[in-house]
């Protein structure tokens, strides 16, 4: 990169209108076709000493004078300003400043984007694990026109995080965990009418050893796609008895949405810091 950019002033020096920089991978770094008044060797890279239009700014030390050593283009500056506004707006609409508590005595452990809810009840340990990455279903544009008097903004549904979650049940003294993979229905966001799906459903059930950290594919996995409905209802009752019921599922959505929003804001702040290189 450095040798290429150093070639750019030479291209400028030819004073040919419409000459584009020989940097096809950097479409923003296109100098204007202005004749250069000084010989190349005397071109200074200090801020203001070289009239480079558009988004090109000299390679480090930074032309804006901050001395960070990073590349600060006008695009970066606009990006940072955009991120400032975005962060401010996201914080304004943040529903929970701290993560909401789950009812039912669940202890929460968060490790980045992964969260674990743990509950011990009558000789059993129940663990619910979920990850907020890719947990927000895609939003579809409404096909209907806004009704009379209704603003367009009011039609936009809130983004909610509905992650898949895994329930592990281990009885005291056992090295066997009953593992149930649960999903929320894949409805379009905002669609509430004509909804006859359960709040959540069990997709797969398997036994795994508590000693193994990795999922064993060689253990039989029961898929509920073609499962006897009676057995399915017993499994749902089993979960409900251990606190994984519709109330839990609704509260998990609130928790996951709050965590996802928190992580999103943190990411924006990190991105802003990275682009600013400060």
């Amino acid at each position, binding site marked *: 990169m450095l040798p290429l950019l150093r070639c750019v002033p030479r291209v400028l020096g030819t004073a040919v209108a419409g000459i584009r920089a020989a940097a096809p991978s950097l479409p923003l770094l296109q100098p204007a076709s202005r004749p250069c008044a000084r010989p190349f060797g005397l071109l200074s890279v200090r801020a203001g000493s070289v009239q480079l239009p558009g988004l090109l700014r000299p390679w480090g030390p930074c032309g804006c004078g901050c001395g960070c050593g990073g590349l600060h283009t006008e695009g970066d500056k606009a990006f940072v300003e955009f991120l400032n506004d975005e962060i401010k707006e996201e914080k304004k609409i943040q529903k929970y400043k701290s993560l909401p508590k789950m009812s039912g005595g669940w202890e929460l452990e968060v490790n980045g984007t992964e969260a674990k809810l743990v509950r011990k009840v009558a000789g059993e340990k129940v663990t619910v694990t979920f990850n907020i990455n890719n947990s927000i279903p895609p939003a579809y544009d409404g096909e209907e026109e806004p009704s009379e008097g209704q603003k367009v903004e009011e039609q936009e549904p809130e983004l909610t995080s509905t992650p898949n979650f895994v329930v592990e049940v281990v009885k005291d003294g056992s090295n066997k965990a009953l593992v149930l993979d649960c999903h929320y229905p894949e409805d379009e966001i905002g669609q509430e009418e004509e909804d*006859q799906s*359960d*709040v959540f459903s069990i997709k797969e059930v398997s036994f795994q050893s508590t000693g193994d950290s990795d999922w064993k594919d060689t253990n039989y996995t029961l898929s509920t796609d073609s499962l006897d*409905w*009676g057995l399915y*209802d017993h499994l*749902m*009752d089993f979960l409900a008895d251990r606190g994984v019921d*519709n*109330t839990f599922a609704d509260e998990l959505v609130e928790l996951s949405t709050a965590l996802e929003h928190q992580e999103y804001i943190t990411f924006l702040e990190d991105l802003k810091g990275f682009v600013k290189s400060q």
Partner: protein
Amino acid sequence: MGAVARAAMSLVVRNLQRAVPLRRARLREKVQAVRRALGVQRFDLGVVCVDNRKIQQINRIYRDKNTPTDVLSFPFHENLKAGEIPQPDFPDDYNLGDIFLGVEYIFQHCKENEDYYDILTVTATHGLCHLLGFTHSTEAEWQKVGAIPCPQHTHTGGIAAQGPRNRGCTIFPLQSSMKTKWRNALK
């Protein structure tokens, strides 16, 4: 579709609410017994358990009554004669429709000496009868059935009168011998 597959048609239970704890397997067992008693186990049936908010919404949309209620039925086969078992030509038509149970409403109106799941079952049965073409209009229709108990809660839109026994039921009560026959069929 062969006879074996027809015999195994599904009862789908859905629980969309969190107002009342629900034992799905127990409700399923009871409704399966009702299906067998009525001779309709070959037909698909949906039982959807909802709260007051949802059943009120459905009542408002489909019956123009903005109140919660205990049961609403959506038949697959329309214009059935009372108690007529459909004779479909196509496998996909082995379907009776859906029953929405207002489980929160039923729970709130369940008396202390009443078993909640018995009341749920009776109410589901009432809804099932509607799917089979029964209405409340004539005593003759109810007598044709012979074994359908009168639920204590009306689903015509609300409770017409307060009091332990008179809850605005607009359908005819069974004779005691018929009630016994019904309870035995559910065991």
